[in-house]
């Protein structure tokens, strides 16, 4: 059990010639909650897809439970995915099925369990996220927070060893935020799984995680325990934790000077006005 569950070494990935990730190293031990943080569009979700085997890295290794994910054949990859859960940003519930059928989906697809046992298991999972009473509702009848909890129940249906959360806190009200955060921690501890949380919600995640990776411009900018992160003097981390506009992460997407785009010399214009 000393071997980490997820081990990423020197990982690079890009769409075409545009690099997304450059030389990522990341380790997630068993039973831990790991946060991957960074500004929007920095490749965090891509990282999860690489771990899940949906994308192939251009370079480097990804090992999950001792298996090299990029080298797995379709069948072996599917076997590995049965032991992984993934929570999509907006839940990605199957809209043509009830909440119950959504949670039962994997049990029905991957096991030959009798319907009575499936029923018990599903109700237990739904109870764990506090939505046993909503079993017969359709996803369209749920609020955003509830949908995400159903998706969580669905992700843990097969008792996976690893769950990946893609922005679990996005768009939640403060109460749902706290509930979801605590639930991630509680389920991780109760089921003995490992959780990878991709998020940009610093305050909430620092409360529940064991270790944090900061990703920026495709590289890991900083890492450490929540305490280390809070105390960190790195300007990038400081900007991120405190949500400041000025700092190493620019507000503007790279562009030519505004004056050039507008066809006027802003400096001259300003100067004349002052004069």
């Amino acid at each position, binding site marked *: 059990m000393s071997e980490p569950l997820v081990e990423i070494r020197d990982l690079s990935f890009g769409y075409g010639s545009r690099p997304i990730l450059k030389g990522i190293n990341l380790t997630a031990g068993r039973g831990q909650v790991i946060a991957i943080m960074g500004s929007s569009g920095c490749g965090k979700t891509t990282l999860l897809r690489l771990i*899940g085997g*949906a994308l192939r890295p251009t370079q480097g290794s990804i090992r999950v439970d001792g298996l090299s994910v990029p080298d797995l054949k379709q069948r072996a*990859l*599917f*076997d590995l*995915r*049965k032991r*992984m859960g*993934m929570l*999509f*940003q*907006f839940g*990605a*519930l*199957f*809209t*043509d099925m009830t909440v119950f059928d959504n949670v039962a*989906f*994997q049990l029905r*697809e*991957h096991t030959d369990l009798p319907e009575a046992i499936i029923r018990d298991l599903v109700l237990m999972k739904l109870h764990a996220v506090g939505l046993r009473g909503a079993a017969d509702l359709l996803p369209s009848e749920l609020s955003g927070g509830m949908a995400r909890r159903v998706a969580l129940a669905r992700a843990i249906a097969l008792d996976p060893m690893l769950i990946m959360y893609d922005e679990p806190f996005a768009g939640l009200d403060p109460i749902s935020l706290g509930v979801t955060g605590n639930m991630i921690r509680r389920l991780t501890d109760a089921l003995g799984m490992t959780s990878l949380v991709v998020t940009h919600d610093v305050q909430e995640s620092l409360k529940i995680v064991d270790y944090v990776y900061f990703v920026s411009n495709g590289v890991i900018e900083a890492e450490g325990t929540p305490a280390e992160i809070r105390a960190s003097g790195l300007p990038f981390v400081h900007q991120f934790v405190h949500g400041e506009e000025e700092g190493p992460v620019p507000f503007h997407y790279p562009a030519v000077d505004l004056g050039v785009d507008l066809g006027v010399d802003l400096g001259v214009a300003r100067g004349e006005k002052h004069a």
Partner: protein
Amino acid sequence: MPKRVISPIRMLGHRVIESLWRMGVAARFFALILMRSGACVRRPHLVIREVFSTGVLSLIIIIVSGMFVGMVLGLQGYDTLQTYGSEEALGVLVALSLVRELGPVVAALLFASRAGSAITAEIGLMRATEQIEAMQMMAVDPIARVVAPRFWGGLISMPLLAAMFSAMGIFGGYLVGVVLIGVDDGSFWSQMQAAVDFGDDILQGVIKSVVFGVAVTTIALFEGFDAPPTAEGVSRATTRTVVTSSLAILALDFILTAVMFRGL
């Protein structure tokens, strides 16, 4: 000057290459559907669900349009036949035009706009809301679980809908011709029976409707799967499904008619 000449040609080349490429991808997609249809055999309920949403839900439009088409054929046919004093051949006219052409073709066109567009929109939205990806991450093959059942459901529904369309049309022609206008009941049916051949006419109509079913469902599924995962992408894909499958139906109808009736 040369640029003005070259760029449209280059655009044309680009279009041709792109559409050929898409056709290749669609053919590969079709082969993939057939290869991954095992789950449909093991779990027929997946297909039954799709027969419901493509077949049962298209019933009303098929029955109503079939009736009207048959009634119009009855009126128009009677008008023309009367000039030659052979009103009794009304049954033949109505039945042959429905069984050979109008039944399969119009039913398939309606099927494309009713069921085909629904399939594209549904699959496109499933992709846009990451449901397809979620399924893949749950180690479930979406081709086997989502696409193949819809394909077989459509394939089962289409010939049945076409048969119902033809039957309702003949009934509509009977209503107008015999009940309303007063063509002789006996000769209406007997002339029809003498002229309509099971192997030549009815069976070939069924073959047509099966081919149309394959074409429409494959196009609808491919467009849905291929749609950019945005609102605009899905709506465009839905339109493309209706346009492409209507063209495909008419083109295939010509080819099938040429091959089967003329033996080319």
